[in-house]
């Protein structure tokens, strides 16, 4: 990584608050990101990856709230900023692309106005914002920007809408881009186009980027490092090559084994990890992956902490050399 980190998250916890107490869903996530670096956050649905990202943007909606931890971004501690100070960072320094383009645009507002708003919110004059929104729409490869800027979201396909959402996110050239499963809601043919577009823009604008995904294969070629989350915990954090070739956590290994590999005839077409992740309401003693883990032993009844392993970090008591095949 080298140099000072752009983003440094320490022990970040997110909980659903209620009168009867907090239900913790994200249990102390830590991660770092250097300027211009790309990170993938992978995990199954419900592993807390999207909530973690919303927490970074301070966009959690009640009853969800940050209950613990520190988010250092470019010298600010985001958890202690006022809503006003946070608003100034949102959209200008850090921006997000969301999962579902069908619902993430205002249905009553013209596309051009929604893109322009991302700039006027940060003091860009109306006329300037309008002019730049046309450029942005052209940059995300929306045809005939003059005309499409006057369209409403319902006149756009899913892929086109996601392009508009990308234009919104990039409007102020943020230093950090969070792409929260930007392709899951799209047709397979469109997915690749969107991924390629974001990747290209990321390089062009030299943005640090976090890709959130449940599909390791999708981002393998585009990221520097991967953080693996399981049941609200970071279980492994490693450079992408090491993660694919020498996973340091049994869960990561299971995820890799579950990747479909059409060229490998010796394996069954689909491999499953037995069982399911625990729900936030289910307390697992020790390691959260223990009930599904092939390597589990007595020591795993105590919760492992994230410790340096090889070139990354992993939260597992069992040394790789002792793993059963």
């Amino acid at each position: 990584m080298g140099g000072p980190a752009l983003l440094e998250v320490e022990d970040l916890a997110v909980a659903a608050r209620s009168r009867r107490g907090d239900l913790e869903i994200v249990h102390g996530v830590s991660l770092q990101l250097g300027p211009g670096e790309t990170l993938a956050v992978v995990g199954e649905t419900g592993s807390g990856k999207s909530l973690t990202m919303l927490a970074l943007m301070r966009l959690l909606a009640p009853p969800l709230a940050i209950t613990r931890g520190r988010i250092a971004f470019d010298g600010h501690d985001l958890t202690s900023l006022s809503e006003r100070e946070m608003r100034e960072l949102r959209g200008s320094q850090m921006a997000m692309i969301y999962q579902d383009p069908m619902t993430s645009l205002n249905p009553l507002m013209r596309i051009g106005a929604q893109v322009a708003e991302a700039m006027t919110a940060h003091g860009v004059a109306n006329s300037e914002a309008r002019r730049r929104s046309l450029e942005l729409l052209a940059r995300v490869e929306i045809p005939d920007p003059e005309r499409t800027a006057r369209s409403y979201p319902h006149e756009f396909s899913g892929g086109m809408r996601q392009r508009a959402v990308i234009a919104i996110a990039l409007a102020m050239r943020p230093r950090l881009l969070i792409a929260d499963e930007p392709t899951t809601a799209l047709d397979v043919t469109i997915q690749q186009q969107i991924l390629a577009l974001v990747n290209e823009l990321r390089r062009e604008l030299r943005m640090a980027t976090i890709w959130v995904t449940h599909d390791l294969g999708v981002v393998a070629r585009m990221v520097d490092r991967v953080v693996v989350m399981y049941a609200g915990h970071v279980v492994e954090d490693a450079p992408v090559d090491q993660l694919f070739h020498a996973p340091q956590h049994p869960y990561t290994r299971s995820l890799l084994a579950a990747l479909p590999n059409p060229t490998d005839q010796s394996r069954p077409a689909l491999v499953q990890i037995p069982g399911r992740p625990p729900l936030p309401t289910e307390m697992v003693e020790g390691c959260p992956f223990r009930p599904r883990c092939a390597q589990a032993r007595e020591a795993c009844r105590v919760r492992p902490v994230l410790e340096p392993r090889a070139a990354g970090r992993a939260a597992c008591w069992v040394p790789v050399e002792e793993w059963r095949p």
Partner: protein
Amino acid sequence: METVLANRVTRRVVEAVLALLGVAVLVFVMLRVIPGNQITASLGTEASAALTPSQEAALRAYYGLDQPALAQFFGWLGNVLTGNLGISQRTGQTVLDMTLAALPVTIELAILATLFGLLIGIPLALLSASRPNSARDAVGQLVGLAALSVPSFLLGAALLSLVSKYLHYNPSAQGFARLFEDPGLNFQQMLFPSLVLGFGLAAPIMRTGRSALLEVQTQDFVRTARGKGVTALRVQVRHVLHNALVPIVTMTGIQFGYLLGGAIVVEQIFSVPGIGRQVLIGLQQKEYAVVQSTVLVIALLFVLVNLLTDLLYRLIDPRVRAS
């Protein structure tokens, strides 16, 4: 596309005509079912009981009550269709002239009341929805509940008596000033009745608005707007409120329609010569033509307001325009 629109318009017109016909029949029957008629109303029950059969027959013929009901109905309907709404024996004016005088007053009152209703109801809804289940929400809801529970005759009478007693101010004591003759006095006279009506109107607007706002707030595009760094106020107004407008407009349209029917009680308390009073006096005098024709005009306005509400949806939501 055009035929779809044409079909829809045709359907709306047919529906409207049927509704108006239903109203006409209903009012006609109701008037004849309730005890008393124009003879008892003008002479009093005792005097009319003392009438000789020939006197009674002459009066019945004079008022047109000797005709069979069907003939009365179609005679009146035929006249209405040719623009003759009948004549009031009490005032000697045509019902058309009376309505043309009373209607602008009622429309003015309804518009002012709706404005007050929106001015009170929408900020309350925004306040309540900005932090649901908090102290703010409780205040908003409490005011809404009060507005819903306090009857307008109570609020109206209280306002009138308190202000005139302690502030020695009662613009309604003078003769009614029409809007274009004396706008200043007219506005003073309209202020209290429209405030009272607006307060009552604020309650359903606030409740509808609050639940619509709460629903819209949870939608993804609101998060997108916040993610852009848009200020909280602008998110609430430009994104949330705008998307919550359809149910609010529906509720306001319905309430506005009712107001056009004349706020009988409030018009009476504040001596506003509106359409509600016209119906009420017509009913007291058993002037069948006055009541029937006025109610029909009110029903027609109601239908028009509904149509206007539909047009407003198209203005608010581009998806309605497209479909």
